[in-house]
């Protein structure tokens, strides 16, 4: 790592660390925690959208399935946290492995539609398979776990836990970005045909990306379940998938910081701005339109270009 990169990472760590100090109350820290969890979800989706050029409208599956995994294992089978978490991650990743095989039969809009349909099937299953999921009543968790001797019930330790995982996710995805695999994945995004002609197994590259996205999505799903201590079909719904997509595109697909920024902006509009503006839904729509009109590639690249332009 170069000195500059090290400094950048230190800055990220510092930024995550000062949030609990700066925020006035546990309530705002809770919102920050929600935003970071969705940031992890958006980061995972960005592997597909930004790096792989595969627009998925069914990413809520990897939020909801592991969340249900945590809830069912904890509440119905009484498993302890560590095996529960491992199981939920494995469940979400395995789902991605299977759904990836199905969705990658197509590309472009076909891919988008298969992911959407699979998401709707899982949503329907959650609604209907009442014995397992509790239907629309969902499953309530009896509290946050104690992991490695640390009780995550309070806002501060849970925030730190989530922030640590976000930091890990950022670092892993940064590594991915710089790896040979990352280069191949971007290659399949820009020139799939050429990639084949260079001897690459395009399908396997995409499928691996799908599974990776599923894994990191599952990480956010586990955190989501512990955060809200409740899971219902809403976690698997199309609006949830669309929201994740919007976070990625709003912040800037293909950039590392974009999904995080997108997640923070959308969470802020939904939870904070909505307290002051009745028509926050319109405001959210306007935000999308304005961002795309002014910065077609998203907030992070747009602002970066603007800053560069001012310096020059």
């Amino acid at each position, binding site marked *: 790592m170069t000195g500059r990169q090290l400094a950048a990472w230190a800055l990220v760590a510092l930024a995550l660390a000062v949030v609990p100090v700066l925020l006035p109350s546990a*309530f705002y820290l809770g919102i920050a925690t929600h935003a970071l969890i969705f940031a992890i979800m958006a980061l995972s989706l960005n592997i597909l959208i930004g790096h792989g050029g595969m627009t998925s409208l069914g990413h809520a599956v990897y939020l909801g399935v592991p969340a249900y995994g945590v809830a069912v294992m904890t509440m119905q089978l009484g498993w302890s946290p560590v095996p529960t978490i491992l199981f939920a991650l494995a469940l979400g990743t395995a789902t991605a492995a299977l759904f990836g095989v199905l969705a990658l039969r197509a590309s472009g809009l076909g891919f988008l539609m298969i992911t959407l349909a699979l998401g709707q099937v899982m949503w*329907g299953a959650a609604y209907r398979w009442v014995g397992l999921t509790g239907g629309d009543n969902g499953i309530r968790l009896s509290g946050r776990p104690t992991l490695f001797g640390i009780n995550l019930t309070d806002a501060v330790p849970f925030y730190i836990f989530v922030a640590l995982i976000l930091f890990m996710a950022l670092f892993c995805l940064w590594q991915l970005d710089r790896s040979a695999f990352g280069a191949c994945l971007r290659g399949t995004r820009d020139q799939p045909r050429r990639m084949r002609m260079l001897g690459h197994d395009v399908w396997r590259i995409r499928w691996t990306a799908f599974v990776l996205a599923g894994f990191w999505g599952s990480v956010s799903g586990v955190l989501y379940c512990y955060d809200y201590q409740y899971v*219902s079909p*809403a976690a698997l719904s199309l609006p949830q998938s669309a929201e994740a997509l919007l976070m990625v595109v709003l912040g800037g697909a293909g950039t590392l910081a974009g999904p995080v920024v997108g997640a923070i902006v959308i969470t802020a509009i939904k939870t904070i701005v909505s307290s002051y503006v009745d028509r926050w839904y319109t405001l959210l729509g306007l935000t999308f339109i304005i961002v795309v009109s002014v910065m077609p590639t998203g907030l992070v690249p747009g602002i970066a270009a603007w800053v560069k332009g001012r310096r020059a």
Partner: protein
Amino acid sequence: MALSRRLLVQSGLGAATVALTGTVARADEPIRIGFLTVKTGPLAAGGIQMEQGMNLFLKLRGNKLAGRDVQLIVADTAGSPATTRTKAQELVERDKVHVLIGPLAAFEALAIADYVNTQKMPTLGVAAADDTTQRSASPWYARATASAGQCAHAIAHYAATELKYKRMTIIGDDFAYGHEQNAAFLRVFEDNGGKVVQKLWPPLNAPDYGTYVSQIKNNVDAVFMSFAGSNGFRFTKAFFEYGLGGKIPLIGGMTAMDEAILQQTGEDAVGIVSANWYSAAYDNPANKEFVAGMQRDYKIDPGYYAAGPAVAGAVLEAGMKALGGRFDDREALMKAMRTAVITDSVRGPVKFDDRGNAIGNIYIRKVEKKGGKNVNTVIKTYPDVSQFWTYAEAEFLAKPVYSRDYPPAKNLEN
């Protein structure tokens, strides 16, 4: 009257200073009511009426309850469980409300159930999920409206004993609220000699009810429907489109013929019998004033969603009165509300059972055309109905919660 947010933020600065200096509520501090409702998205219809009902109730009280000023803080849950939880946190932790009213939907109520418990926050619910006042009742939760099964019990009894239906089809939204109503109906109807011969479950997001309507057996005595929101209205329309209206009687559960959709349903609605703990046509002074106010301020007749907060407000008022206007001791306030006996709410008399659910009148209503508009005329009153109907509480609770398949339907025909 809902205070504007900006005003609230300004006065909130004062409140924050108070919190910092650790002073307990000032003697002249207003009671802050956190109101969770849905103002955006597909569920907003009921949510907007909830807010209107609450606003009107407070307006009619001169924005004072038991002599104390009221600050109403409204939060939009957007019909999402995750947002509901965040908004509940906002109201409790940031706005430091003294009592919560709402939220609208069962899954929203369930999403905050544990939070309300750990925060020991007095909550007056309106959502119908049975178990929130049954097997998983909470000391911090009370529901002045009804459980999903509560009204269905009554109309099932009415259908079997007064309408003398023997064979019925039941149809409802395929989610917990529909399941619970239909299960309650089935139990009481069959315990009183009727037979449910067909159960149909359209999914919540059914684009069209034609396919379901055309499956209804043509040899049943009547059809019972338990729908929420606009689904009841759309089902009724399809029922008449397919020529079943007038041939097979249609009766409805708690929200199937809600005042919110009564006018839109038009001629088709006339004659439909349903059960609810409320009717805009219920005749007592409190309700007369309330209905007139809704018509004046919002040009609508109040229904389930508007009346719920008005009843909750009456409960809160009664609790505060019992404490001489005090509300700072949450435990005392909750206890006072749950032991209150209210005689003159918009739904008539109401009190709570030991699990926090309302015991009150259930009205059998029939849609009639009066003065050019549809009204739910009360044709029979079941007084003091509890969520357990006539069953013994212990026996009732020993059985599983009402669901899609419980109690089992033994008389289905293919």
